[in-house]
C-alpha cells in the first residue's frame, strides 16, 4: 500500500478519485472527445464511459483538476461529435432513433463489433448530457446546453418499447429488437426515469409498472432487500439520482427507498463474503465486491477433488451467483456514499494485503486470489472506464452531493421520477 496507508481517509479517497478521473483524460480521443472502454490497446469507445466522463468533468472543475474552460471545451467536443454523428439504420452508423451503439470507433464513431444499439448505455450517456446541460449555465456555455438538450430530446424512447409496455435491452439493424428484456430490479432505474421524463418521445408509464412486476422483495441472509445480484446494479442509477427519501409506489409499500435498499444489498454482500460458502480465498467482511466485470478465463482448477470453474468477463452476483472468487477491487470504495466505514475498511484492507490491485493509484477491474498464479492471485489487465467513472462520481457524491445536487435541478429527471410515481423528500 506504501504511502497510501499513511493518508487520512479523506486524503486517500481524494487521491484515488483523482487517479480514477485521470483515466477519463488519458484515454480520451483528442479529436472526438470519445473515451475508450478500457486502457487496452485498440479499445473502442464505450458510450457509457463517455456518459461518465461528461458527468465527471464538473467534478474535476470543482476539485481543481480541470479549468472550467477546459471542461467546457471537452464537453462541447463530445456533444458536437454526437450531434453530427450518423443516425440511421445503416449497420455502421453511430446510432439510430436517438440511441447509440454500445461500442463505437474512437475516431470515426462508427459502430464496431456488430454490437447492439444499447438502451442502458445510451441512458448512461444521456445522463452525462444532462449533467453538462445543468452544470454549464454560463452565458458563454449556451451551445453546451442547447446541444445536450437536443440530443436528449431526440431519443425516441417510445420506439424502443416496440409496441409493448416493456423495454428490450437493445436493437440491431440485422435482427431488430433483442429478445433480452429487463427482468428484476437493476441499473435500469435510470433508463426508465430518463425515458419517462422525455418531453418528446416519453416511455408510457405502463413500462415502469411492467418492469416492477418482475421485482423480487426478499429476506436474504436475514436482510430485507429488493434483490439484484451484481453490486453495480445497486450503484449505477445512484451515481446520478439522489434516491434518499424519495419513494415510488413499491418503496412506499415497503417503507424503504432505493438508497436504503442499496445499503441492504451491501450488507448482504458483506454477509455473503463472511460466510464464504464456497471457500474462496480472502473473502470476508472486509473483502467483497462481487459484480459485473473482468475475470479469469483460466482452465478448470481441481481443489480438494472439486472442480472450480472461472467465467471470464461476466456479471457475477450474490448470493445466487455466479461467483468464481473474483471481486472488483474498485467496488467497495464505490459504495462509500452508502456507508463510509465499510467502504474504507474494505478498501484499506485490500490495498494493504493486495497492493497490486491498484496500479498508479487506479483500481484494476478484476481480482481473483483463489486462482493462484504464484503472485497473489489473478489480476485483470488494464483499467476499465466504467469502473473509474463510477468511482469518481460516487466519491464526489459522498463528499459533496455534487452530482445529486445537479440532477435534482434537472427538470427531465424531476419529471421522470414523478411519472414513475416517486414522491417525498427533495422531490
Amino acid at each position, binding site marked *: 500500500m506504501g504511502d497510501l496507508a499513511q493518508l487520512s481517509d479523506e486524503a486517500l479517497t481524494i487521491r484515488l478519485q483523482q487517479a480514477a478521473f485521470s483515466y477519463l483524460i488519458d484515454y480520451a480521443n483528442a479529436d472526438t472527445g470519445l473515451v475508450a472502454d478500457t486502457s487496452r490497446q485498440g479499445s473502442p469507445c464505450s458510450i457509457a464511459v463517455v456518459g461518465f466522463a461528461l458527468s465527471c468533468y464538473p467534478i474535476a472543475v470543482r476539485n481543481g483538476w480541470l479549468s472550467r474552460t477546459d471542461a467546457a471545451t471537452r464537453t462541447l467536443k463530445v456533444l458536437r461529435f454526437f450531434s453530427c454523428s450518423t443516425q440511421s439504420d445503416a449497420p455502421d452508423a453511430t446510432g439510430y432513433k436517438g440511441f447509440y451503439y454500445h461500442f463505437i470507433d474512437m475516431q470515426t464513431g462508427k459502430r464496431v463489433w456488430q454490437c447492439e444499439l444499447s438502451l442502458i448505455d445510451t441512458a448512461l450517456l444521456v445522463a452525462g448530457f444532462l449533467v453538462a446541460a445543468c452544470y454549464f449555465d454560463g452565458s458563454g456555455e449556451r451551445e453546451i446546453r442547447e446541444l445536450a438538450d437536443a440530443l436528449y430530446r431526440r431519443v425516441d424512447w417510445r420506439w424502443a418499447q416496440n409496441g409493448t409496455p416493456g423495454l428490450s435491452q437493445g436493437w440491431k439493424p440485422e435482427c431488430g429488437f433483442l*429478445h433480452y428484456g429487463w427482468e428484476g430490479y437493476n441499473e435500469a432505474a435510470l433508463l426508465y426515469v430518463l425515458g419517462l421524463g422525455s418531453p418528446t418521445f416519453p416511455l408510457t408509464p405502463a413500462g415502469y409498472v411492467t418492469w416492477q412486476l418482475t421485482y*423480487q*422483495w426478499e429476506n436474504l441472509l436475514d436482510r430485507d432487500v429488493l434483490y439484484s445480484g451484481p453490486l453495480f446494479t445497486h450503484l449505477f442509477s445512484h451515481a446520478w439520482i439522489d434516491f434518499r427519501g424519495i419513494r415510488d409506489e413499491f418503496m412506499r409499500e415497503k417503507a424503504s427507498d432505493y438508497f436504503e435498499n442499496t445499503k441492504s444489498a451491501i450488507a448482504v454482500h458483506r454477509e455473503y463474503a463472511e460466510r464464504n460458502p464456497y471457500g474462496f480465498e480472502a473473502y470476508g467482511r472486509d473483502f467483497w465486491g462481487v459484480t459485473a466485470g473482468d475475470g479469469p478465463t483460466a482452465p478448470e482448477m481441481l481443489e480438494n*477433488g472439486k472442480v472450480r470453474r472461472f467465467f471470464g468477463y461476466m456479471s457475477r452476483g450474490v448470493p445466487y451467483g455466479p461467483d468464481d472468487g473474483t471481486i472488483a477491487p474498485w467496488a467497495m470504495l464505490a459504495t462509500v456514499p452508502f456507508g463510509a466505514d465499510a467502504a474504507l475498511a474494505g478498501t484499506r484492507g485490500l490495498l494493504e494485503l493486495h497492493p497490486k490491485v491498484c496500479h498508479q493509484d487506479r483500481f484494476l477491474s478484476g481480482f481473483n486470489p483463489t486462482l493462484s498464479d504464484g503472485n497473489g492471485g489473478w489480476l485483470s489487465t488494464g483499467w476499465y472506464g466504467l469502473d473509474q467513472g463510477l468511482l469518481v462520481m460516487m466519491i464526489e457524491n459522498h463528499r459533496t452531493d455534487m452530482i445529486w445536487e445537479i440532477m435534482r435541478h434537472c427538470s427531465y429527471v424531476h419529471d421522470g421520477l414523478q411519472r414513475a410515481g416517486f414522491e417525498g423528500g427533495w422531490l
Partner: protein
Amino acid sequence: MPRNPYDIAIVGAGPAGLEAAEYAARLGFSVALIERNRLGGNSLNAGSVPSKAIIRTARVCSTMRDAEAFGASIPSAPSLDFDKVMARMRRIRTRISGYHSVHELAEPGVDIFFGSARFESADTLFVDDAPVHFKKALIATGARPGAPNIPGLDQTGYRTSATIFEMAALPTRLAIIGGGPLGCEMAQAFCGLGSHVTIVQSDPKFLSREERDAAEILSRSMARDGVDIRLNTTVVGARRVNGIKILETVNNDVKGDIQADEILLSIGRVPNVEKLNLAAAGVTFDEDHGIKVDDFLRSTNPNVYAAGDVCLALKFTNAAQSSARMAVRNALMQAQQRQSSLVIPWCTYCDPEIAHIGLHVWEARQQSIPIKSFTVMMHDVDRAITDGRDTGFVKIHISEGSDRILGATIVSSRASELINEMAVIMSAGIGMKALAEVAHTYPAQSEAILLAAQAYTRNFDEAAKRAASGNADNGK
C-alpha cells in the same frame, strides 16, 4: 359384461384416465375406460417413468466421476453399457405398468375397451364400431409432442419424448431443440451418459415457467456438466449431409450450424383432440389449448368433462391425476370443486432439481398481492454441505404482513421431495410462525424449510421491536 349406459365413459388411459377410472369404480359407479394404445399413457410409456430411470443412471455416472471430492476413488473412468441402461429402463417401465394392468383395473369393475374412440352424439361414443352409451363422459386423451414448422426437419429425422427411449445406441452427439423440463432433463442426463449434448432454446433462459434465479442456476449447472448451451437461439432449418444431421440456427443476427447424430425435439405438447369428433358431442376445443373447460372441468357439453393434459396448462402427471379425481367428483357426485383451487407442486428433475408450488412472485405482483420471499441458500444447510450437494435455495413466498404461505420455489438436489412438505404445509394452511416450531430431523435438506420459517420469525420480531421503539419515541 358391458353396461349401457355407463355412469361414466373415460376416453384415454393415461394418468388422468386411469386415476379417474379407479376412483369412480371404487365409488361404485359403472365405468368404461377406452384406450387406443397402451395403458399408462405418456407418463408411463414415454415420459416421467423412463426419463427418471435414465436420469438415475446418469447420476450414478456423475457420482463416480465426482468420487474424488468425497475421498473415494474408482479404478478407472466409468464406462457405460447403453444396452443395459435401456434394458433397466424397460424393466422399470414393465414393473410399474403392472400396477395399472387390465387385471388390476377389472377388479374394481372397470370395463376396458381397446380401440379408437369418437363421439357419435352428446351421450354416445363409438369404440371402433361398438357403441358405448354414457351418462357422463371424461376426456383424458392427454397430449403429444408438438412439431414445429422447421424446414427440412421432417426429412432430417428427429426424435421426441415418444421415441427418445427407443434409441438402440447412445448418440455421440445429441442436439436438443427446446429448453423446457424434458429438454433440460435429457440434456443433462445424456451428457452424463457420455453424449456431447447441445441444447437450443429460443428464450433467453431455460424453463420459462420458473423464476430467473432458478433457471440461471440450472443453466450454470448444465454448463458445468459440459452441455453446450445455445440460449436465445432459434432453429430455422435442418438438413442431412453424409448421414450427419445439421440444425441451422440464428442467435440474434449470428447464424450457426449444430451437427448431431440424433435430434430430440422438445418444444411442448399439443392436446390430443382431433380424432374424437368432438363437434358431435357439442364439445368446444382448439388445437393449441385443447378442450375448453370451465373452472369445474366441465366442457361446453354439461355431461362431458375433461382432465389432464388435454385441457390443463400444467401438463404434469400429478396435475392430471388431481384434476381427474376432481372431475369425477364434479361429474358424478354433484361436487362443485374448482380447478383453480388445486395446489399442484411440480419439479424438473435436473441436477439440481427445480420445484415449485403455488404462486410465483410475478403472479402475485400481477394480482397486486404484496409478496415477500424468505430465502435460505442450500450452502447454509448442514445436510446439503455434508452431502456435497449445496447448490440451490429454498424460497418461501408469503403474503406480506401475514405469515400466510402463497408459494415456494426450491432448487436443490432433492427438491422433488422437499416441495411435498410445502404441499402439505399449504394444504393444511400452516403459516410461517407455526412452521418455525415444527421440529425437523437434523441434519436434513428439509431443514432449509425450517430455517426459512425461522428467518420469518426473526424478521417479524425485529419489525415488532422497531414498531415498539417508534411508538416509544413518538410518546416522548
